[in-house]
Structures are given as structure tokens and as C-alpha cells.
């Protein structure tokens, strides 16, 4: 059965990362303006973890962010946005529900597998099952897609979309879809940003276990130092290449989200009227630059073209230095801000 065409006037803005891009774009549609870095900061997206025991496509997971889906959850909680979330067993029912929302004029966010999205470049199509896109219309057998990592909106055939929505693996996508049902356009972004920032800082310095938070960085350094002895030259290079991908591939905005977080600190400095956050943004940028140096040197080592003095040990040293600076920065950010003006006001009263 062919359904009537629907085109919702949805403004697509390209983003660095899919989840924060979807948040920013969906919120703008519903009248709440938040930039991508702001969505990232309010949703406390930044994190670090190296989990040698969790494997994705056979490779230990290193992550520069919190779990997929959680940025959206924290963002909603902090801003008072209410979402409707659904998952399905039956692909046809999942498509019906999508059509129903579109007919009501609602753009719909959903979880897909990159492997089954034909419009993406081949080189990026691995089995990654946590890619967020927005569907904002329908025309014949095709759906109109706003994929946040792309420059412009695109289209996908119904069959392909169904497949992408029902990929198996880690995780099963289960046709997950979501859309806001209540967006307070007067949400207190000040409070939301302050909460988000504090949560990130605390996550980075207080999460127990050695593999999580800022201390996860020297933890990886310890493993990296022994890669060549433990894995042999070939597998050590593969593991190193994988680290680069986790850090720099589409979706991180560069340096494993560190630059996006620095952009958030800049915005937060203005919103919260805390000029010292601009200073912290500079520190975060410097740390991001060191992540990039790490990736650059790691890339040379992968290719067997490293200069004298660059080896697994020197890369591990770089990570130790980065870990130290991140610990320092987030410790500072976890402290309660000095409320200069208010405190003085009370004192003089």
C-alpha cells in the first residue's frame, strides 16, 4: 500500500556526532535552541573508558564518551524535555509507528546500524549499531533522512531502512525510535549547563575502577606499553589503529570529543557568567591537541614509518601526560564554583 507523501519542514544542520546532532536538530524543530556542544555538555557526554574485556568486532573498546543513548537521557532530565521511546519486535509494526508519527507532523529519531545505511560511504560501514538519524518525511517507497554527520539531508528506501532498524549484534537495534512529546521552550539552560558540567567533572574524577574516567587513560598507557611484547608486531599495530579510529573517526569532532567539550566550556562561560571557564576551555584545547599528536604518531607507527624515538613506550608516556592533565582539569571543574557576585551581595547586605 502506497501512503501519501509527507515532508515535514525540518532544518538539517550538520554535526560532528550523531547523538548530539540529533538532539540539537530535534530541539530546534520544537523551539528550543541548543547548539551541538551545548547538547553534549548538558547531556554530560564526555567520558573516558578503556575496557579490554568488552569487545566490539573482536577489538577491545576504548571510548571517549558515555554509553550511546545516555547523552539524550541526561539532556532530557536536565532540561525537562519529555521523550516518547519505543522498541519493537516486528519490523512492520515499527514502520507503521514511524508512519503514524510522520503523519502527525513529527520528525522521528531512531537507532540504526551503519552497516545497512547505503547512503554512507563504504569505508565507514562497519557493524556499528548505535547510529542516530532523524526521519522527517516520506515519498513513495523512500524516506527523507537527516543524518547529522552528513552535509545535506538524504533518502533511504523503505526496505533498507527496515533492515538498518533491525540489525542484530551489540546492541540489537530493535527498531528503537523516539520523539519529544514535551519541550519546554523556556527551559533553564543555565541550570542545565551547570548540572551537566558538574556531572561530567564528577564522572571523570570519581568513577571507581581503574578503567573509567581520567585514570582510565594511564590504565590504557600501561597496556599499550606492553602491546608489542604481548600481541606481536602485527596485532599491536591493529590495536593501535583501532585506538586511532575510536578517537578520530566520524562522530567525535576530533580528539575524542575533547574539542567539542572545549566548545561547550566556551559557551558555558557566557551562559553561566563564569569567565574562568574560558580559561578551562583553553586547557581542554591543549589537551585535545595532545590527543591529536598521539593519534598522529600512532598513525606513523601503524604504517611502520615512525621516526626515531617513537615507539609504544613513548606513546604510553604521552597518554600518561594527557591523563595527568585531564585529572587536574576535571578535579578543578568538579569543585563548586565560587559565586563571586552573590556572595559579596550577601556580605554587604
Amino acid at each position, binding site marked *: 500500500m502506497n501512503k501519501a507523501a509527507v515532508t515535514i519542514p525540518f532544518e538539517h544542520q550538520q554535526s560532528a556526532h550523531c547523538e548530539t546532532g540529533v538532539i540539537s536538530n530535534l530541539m530546534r524543530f520544537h523551539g528550543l535552541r541548543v547548539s551541538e556542544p551545548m547538547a553534549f555538555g548538558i547531556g554530560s557526554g564526555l567520558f573516558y573508558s578503556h575496557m579490554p574485556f568488552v569487545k566490539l568486532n573482536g577489538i577491545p573498546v576504548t571510548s571517549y564518551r558515555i554509553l550511546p543513548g545516555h547523552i539524550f537521557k541526561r539532556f532530557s532530565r536536565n532540561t525537562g524535555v519529555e521523550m516518547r521511546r519505543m522498541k519493537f519486535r516486528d519490523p512492520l509494526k515499527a514502520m507503521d509507528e514511524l508512519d503514524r508519527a510522520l503523519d502527525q507532523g513529527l520528525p522521528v529519531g531512531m537507532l540504526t546500524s551503519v552497516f545497512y545505511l547505503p547512503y554512507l560511504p563504504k*569505508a565507514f560501514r562497519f557493524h556499528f549499531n548505535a547510529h542516530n538519524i532523524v526521519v522527517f518525511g516520506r515519498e513513495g517507497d523512500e524516506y527523507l533522512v537527516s543524518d547529522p554527520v552528513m*552535509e545535506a539531508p538524504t533518502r533511504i528506501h523503505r526496505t533498507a531502512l527496515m533492515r538498518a532498524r533491525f540489525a542484530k549484534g551489540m546492541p540489537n537495534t530493535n527498531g528503537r525510535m523516539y520523539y519529544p512529546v514535551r519541550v519546554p521552550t523556556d527551559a533553564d539552560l543555565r541550570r542545565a549547563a551547570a548540572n551537566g558540567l558538574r556531572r561530567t567533572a564528577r564522572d571523570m574524577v570519581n568513577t571507581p575502577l581503574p578503567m573509567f574516567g581520567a585514570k582510565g587513560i594511564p590504565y590504557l598507557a600501561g597496556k599499550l606499553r606492553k602491546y608489542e611484547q604481548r600481541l606481536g608486531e602485527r596485532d599491536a599495530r591493529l590495536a593501535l589503529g*583501532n585506538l586511532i579510529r575510536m578517537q*578520530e573517526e566520524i562522530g567525535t569532532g*576530533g580528539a575524542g570529543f575533547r574539542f567539542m567539550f572545549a566548545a561547550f566550556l566556551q559557551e558555558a562561560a557566557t551562559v553561566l557568567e563564569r569567565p574562568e571557564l574560558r580559561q578551562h576551555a583553553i586547557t581542554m*584545547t591543549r589537551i585535545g591537541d595532545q590527543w591529536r599528536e598521539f593519534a598522529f604518531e*600512532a*598513525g606513523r607507527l601503524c*604504517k611502520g614509518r615512525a621516526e626515531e624515538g617513537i615507539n609504544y613506550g613513548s606513546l604510553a608516556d604521552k597518554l600518561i601526560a594527557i591523563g595527568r592533565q585531564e585529572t587536574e582539569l576535571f578535579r578543578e571543574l568538579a569543585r563548586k564554583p565560587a559565586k563571586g557576585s552573590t556572595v559579596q551581595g550577601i556580605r554587604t547586605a
Partner: protein
Amino acid sequence: MKKEDVPQDDANMLEGKFRVVKYALNENGEYEKVRSVGWEPENTALEQAWDVVHERVEAARQGVLAGRLSPLAYHMEKNMMDAGLLAKHAGLSTRKVERHTQPAAFAVLDTDTLQRYATALLVSVDELKTVPR
């Protein structure tokens, strides 16, 4: 990272379909979105990951031609799946999928099972029974 330092190392990974967004500092020291066609270390890492995939596919193809593996093994590698993932997609047990990568077990499969595999691996049943020479 400054705006002018955002790398533009094109290795055709994006096939010219789009550029990606990076966050970088503009001349006023403010962050903004800057588009990039790629960066060398990232290209290297991606190439390396694909080399591994291609090696596995080729090894499976040779295995099929030598009569050690069934064509299912080849198509499974081509879809970057292991037996566990293919089993989930085809609605069969991992153990069965493993068995069907053997030529003898594959040869006697019924049409329903073949169709399940074909659908999961995005090929026709005829294609499922062959590998490129």
C-alpha cells in the same frame, strides 16, 4: 586545534559524498564547525581495518575453492559477520551456522534455510551457492 590546522587529507574514504565536521578555533579564539575531507592517521587506521576484512574474505574464498569451506563461509566474511552474528540474523543457532560453513552440511540444506541465509547476507539463493572465481 586552529581552523587552519584542520587536516584536509583526502584518501577518498568519504567518496566525495560529504565532508565531516570538526570543532576548531577561529581567528577570534572561538570554536566553530569546520569541514574536513579526512586526516592521514585516520585514513591509515581505516585502510588497515579494511585490509584485515579483505584478507579474511579472500582466505574464505580460497577455502571454498579448495573444497575446505562452503560458500556460506565466504558470504559470511563478506558481510563482516561471525557465526554468532549470522545466526542471530538468520534465526538459527550458532552451532548450526558453524556446521553449515562445511561443504558437506551446506550441500544438503533445504530451501527454507538457504533462503534465510540469503536474506541475512543480502544475496540471492543462487549467489549464496557460489563464490567469485
